[in-house]
């Protein structure tokens, strides 16, 4: 059996064992099987990666189906892109599985949880390994199903129904776009195999209207899965699930499926400049929106969720300017530091006896030293402060954006400042200052067990050094990842070189831009420091704005200025986005579709009166209508 086949098979076996026997197998064995299969799968990926000769290959498992002249095979594609994603999925996945052993130890659904988690890994691997759009779709649906099951894992939460429904409707809208795109691909290219489609598409001209439709519809799919405007609100709500799930599915892997799909189809996207422009601006808007809402959230997981939305927006912004490598690079670094932050948050929640409100935390750095240190590294990484991972990837995206459009760049940099601010706000409120929780919680505070801290340390290490995989030349690096991934974009570069053309930026400009973005990150950090450390501000509950004003009144003049110039407008913006756009527009629009169907259903149901006479009458009307319609030519002469 080929090693490639073994990679998705191992988690599937884990799922089957745990799924069938979860009530009989002891917990230790469940954890061992669950985590062990993913680690073994990671070992296989690593082996393949180390022996990879740079030649992409497609390995056919078997001929799946033959319809007319369409031959669809169940086959896996091994190339640079799938390898990168496989490494992320199994690598980060292994760590999160390990972490879950500790985190879910006291949960009664331990076995079920690991079964679902393994199933998720299986589908995610299918998604990135499939060699055609149909297998990708199988993975796409499968991860959606697992995510759905895992969001509702703790269904005691009252909001669960809403959260799951929202996730469901939004993802299905996305899937609809994806399906239509696949049918368009099928009719136009007669194949859904990546290699065939791209080979044929390479002969087309940029701006082809069919390609435009295909790419737009594919992007609709990506919007749903990767939480972009207007289909993003399900992601913050999805935090109802256990924290390892948030880390694995809603931060590191599944939500980046949309980015994977666009990078995979980079040739099609390069041929559709209009779509790229749309992708870029939607990404930017999402990045800004996510970051601004994140500013004033008080739930530790909600902050991270909005931050994920925002970071995904960054990636799409990168894709929009044809910066495919930086986007993929950001996927990788983001997987490291966001998984780390979520797991750290999980460790905090664990220690705080399921408290998630940061207003009730504070000063935790003494009780949770390892969590604190790793969380700090993650925060620095996401804020974009060198030399940690986030700096390199985010900066590369911004560099490409600068090339493309200065306004976009400006907003991007501003968003980056917001990111730095809200992340340090989170860090300071949780780990610094005095403890604000109850006595019981304080008494209970403890560092998490080794199974939980070990993954934290590993991820912290990766977040710290992850950036060095792709150090730009200006900093004396070899841009290893870019070189590694370059063959993927060769065809696209051939058909439309201008999309990739980088005007030769002088090294000094490049350096200036870097310094600029580091500087704004520092401003965000400083602002957070001033407010939350020096002034010891604690955000107040909603409806208590008077309290906030009062507190600020007795503080420095700077605070008032800050408040008037910065906090209030942004606060208003944040509230505006959150309340008006989020609730009015998105909910009305997206949920409206669902409600509309339900309402229609209610109306349709009324036709089912139960009265036989009415039924027969309706049939007669139907026949009359059929006759009149089809024979209108005969009747009218």
């Amino acid at each position: 059996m080929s090693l490639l086949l073994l990679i998705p098979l191992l988690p599937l076996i884990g799922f089957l064992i745990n799924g069938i026997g979860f009530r009989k197998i002891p917990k230790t064995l469940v954890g061992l099987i669950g985590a062990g299969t993913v680690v073994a799968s990671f070992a296989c990926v690593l082996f393949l990666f180390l022996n990879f000769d740079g030649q992409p290959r497609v390995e056919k498992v078997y001929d799946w189906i033959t319809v007319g002249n369409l031959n669809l095979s169940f086959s896996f594609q091994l190339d640079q892109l799938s390898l990168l994603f496989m490494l992320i999925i199994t690598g980060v996945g292994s760590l999160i599985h390990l972490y879950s052993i500790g985190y879910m130890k006291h949960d009664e659904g331990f076995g079920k949880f690991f079964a679902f988690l393994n199933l998720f890994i299986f589908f995610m691997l299918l998604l990135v390994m499939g060699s055609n759009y149909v297998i990708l779709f199988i993975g796409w649906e499968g991860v959606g199903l697992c995510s759905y099951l895992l969001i509702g894992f703790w269904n005691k939460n009252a909001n669960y129904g809403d959260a799951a429904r929202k996730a469901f409707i939004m993802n299905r809208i996305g899937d609809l776009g994806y399906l239509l795109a696949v049918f368009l691909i099928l009719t136009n290219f007669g194949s859904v195999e990546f290699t065939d489609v791209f080979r044929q598409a390479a002969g087309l001209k940029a701006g082809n209207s069919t390609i435009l439709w295909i790419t737009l519809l594919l992007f609709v799919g990506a919007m749903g899965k990767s939480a972009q405007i207007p289909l993003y609100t399900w992601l913050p709500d999805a935090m109802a699930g256990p924290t390892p799930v948030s880390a694995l599915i809603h931060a590191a892997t599944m939500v980046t499926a949309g980015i994977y799909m666009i990078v995979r189809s980079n040739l099609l996207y390069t041929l559709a400049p209009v779509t790229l422009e749309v992708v870029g601006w939607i990404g930017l808007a999402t990045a800004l929106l996510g970051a601004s809402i994140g500013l004033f959230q008080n739930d530790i997981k909600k902050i991270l969720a909005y931050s994920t939305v925002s970071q995904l927006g960054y990636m799409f912004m990168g894709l929009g300017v044809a910066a495919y490598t930086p986007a993929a690079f950001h996927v990788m670094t983001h997987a490291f530091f966001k998984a780390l932050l979520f797991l750290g948050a999980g460790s905090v929640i664990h220690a705080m006896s399921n408290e998630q409100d940061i207003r009730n935390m504070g000063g935790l750095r003494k009780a949770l030293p390892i969590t604190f240190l790793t969380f700090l590294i993650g925060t620095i990484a996401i804020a974009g402060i060198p030399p940690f991972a986030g700096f390199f990837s985010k900066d590369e995206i911004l560099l490409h954006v600068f090339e493309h459009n200065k306004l976009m760049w400006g907003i991007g940099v501003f968003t980056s400042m917001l990111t730095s601010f809200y992340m340090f706000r989170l860090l300071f409120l949780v780990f610094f200052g005095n403890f604000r929780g109850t006595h019981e919680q304080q008494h209970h505070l403890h560092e998490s067990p080794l199974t939980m801290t070990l993954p934290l340390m590993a991820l912290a290490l990766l977040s710290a050094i992850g950036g060095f995989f792709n150090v730009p030349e200006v900093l004396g690096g070899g841009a290893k990842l870019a070189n590694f991934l370059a063959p993927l974009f060769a065809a696209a570069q051939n058909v439309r070189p201008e999309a990739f053309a980088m005007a030769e930026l002088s090294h000094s400009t490049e350096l200036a831009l870097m310094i600029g973005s580091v500087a704004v990150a520092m401003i965000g950090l400083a602002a957070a420091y001033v407010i939350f450390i020096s002034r010891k501000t604690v955000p107040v509950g909603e409806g208590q704005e008077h309290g906030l004003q009062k507190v600020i009144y007795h503080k420095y003049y700077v605070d008032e200025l800050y408040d008037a110039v910065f906090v209030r407008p942004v606060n208003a913006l944040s509230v505006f986005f959150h309340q008006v756009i989020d609730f009015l527009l998105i909910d009305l629009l997206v949920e409206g579709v669902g409600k509309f169907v339900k309402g229609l259903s209610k109306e349709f149901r009324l036709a089912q009166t139960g009265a036989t006479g009415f039924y027969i009458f309706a049939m007669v009307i139907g026949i009359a209508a059929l006759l009149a319609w089809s024979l209108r030519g005969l009747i009218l002469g």
Partner: protein
Amino acid sequence: MLSIISLSLFGILNLFLGFLKSRRVLLPATLLFIALAFAANLLDWNHQYVYFRDMLRTNNLFINFSSIILLTTFLTVAISRSFGTDEEHTHPAEYYAIMLFSVVGALMMVGFENLIMLFIGLEILSVSLYVLTGSDKRSLRSNEAALKYFLMGSFATGIFLFGIALVYGATGSFNLSAIGSYVSGGPTTGISPLLYVGLLFILAGMLFKVSAAPFHFWTPDVYDGAPTLFTAFMSTVVKTAGFAALYRLLTVSFTGVYGLWWQVLTGVTVLTLLVGNITAVYQSSVKRMLAYSSVSHAGYLLIAVAAKTPQSPSAILFYSLAYSIATITGFAVLILVAEQKPIEGRPDERYEAFNGLAKRNPLLAFSLAVSMVSLAGIPLTAGFWGKFFVFSTAVDRGMTNMGMVLVVAVLMSVVGVYYYFRVIIASYLKTGDSEPIGIRPLYRFILVLTTALTIGLGLFPDVVRQLF
């Protein structure tokens, strides 16, 4: 052909078996009969025969369709346990016999070469089903359903028969190929208007049988009122036979006027998809939801008929197979779950009855989940490929003709996921009773078999498709 004759004899034999004291022999005997008929059916593989002066024709397509019908009948009979609320006064032998007879009718509908055979086959099937629908004699709902089914069904038969008479008037024959050569041969006087009207009447009658909108109104009430076992039987066998007949009739006889019936069918398809899927959303009873789902699947199958490409028969076959297996599974689980806690003496068929099913019996929950996923058309199950093949016939026909239908179909399959998943959510994520549900070995075997088939066909669809 041997299958039709043997089934008729077996049915009569079954009636005699009813005189035996022991009822336990009935179920295995009936299963054996069906298996024998299935085997007899396969003898003619790769042969073409015409029987009784061009009345019936058997070929591989006939064998494929009838195998699906016999398979679903086998599965339905295997999950039968008791008939009606009144154990004392029921006669299982009669119900088994009537089921066998109705299958004879269904097989005649699949292999007809003459409109007389189509009419008789349809009537044998329908009249048997009227009886089966009302078989729960003590139940008000069952009686009501039988009455409604009968009145509407015979009304549809009247229309259908009048259509046949008009077509006969226009062409002078009941023979399919003779009608076909009249229609496409282009008689010197031009095609008679009688033929158009007759064709539309026949179509209306057939569309009623496969429950396509706006002739679907009987479906929810009848499916809801009939005993669940026979609902499962009706929604699978009638649909398969009806579509086999519809496709055969339209392609052999009426290819010459494709432009006419294509319009009608696309209109009906869109309406059926909309009505079936959207109404299913609001149902509170799983049984009623499955009834509307059956309407919506008629819509998907109609796409393949309307597209009329060389791939259409195999698409219809695969879709019917996937749909039948998944539907039987769904109803089989419903029967067990619903009778656990009756409400006012009636089985509890609401969504709430499924709460916490995964804890009560993991096998039931898993089979149910697989069947719902398959009905929803999610990949790696048979249902996905069914939809895929059906949609690709529409793609082959061309976007200008079928684009609109295709968009509606894809949209509605999204809606479908919503109501199918409600059952899965109830059984996996909600908490309910914790009392375990026990099942008998044969029942368990059937559930495992159908689930394995659904997944197996999803993984290796070509294994079966090579035969189609």
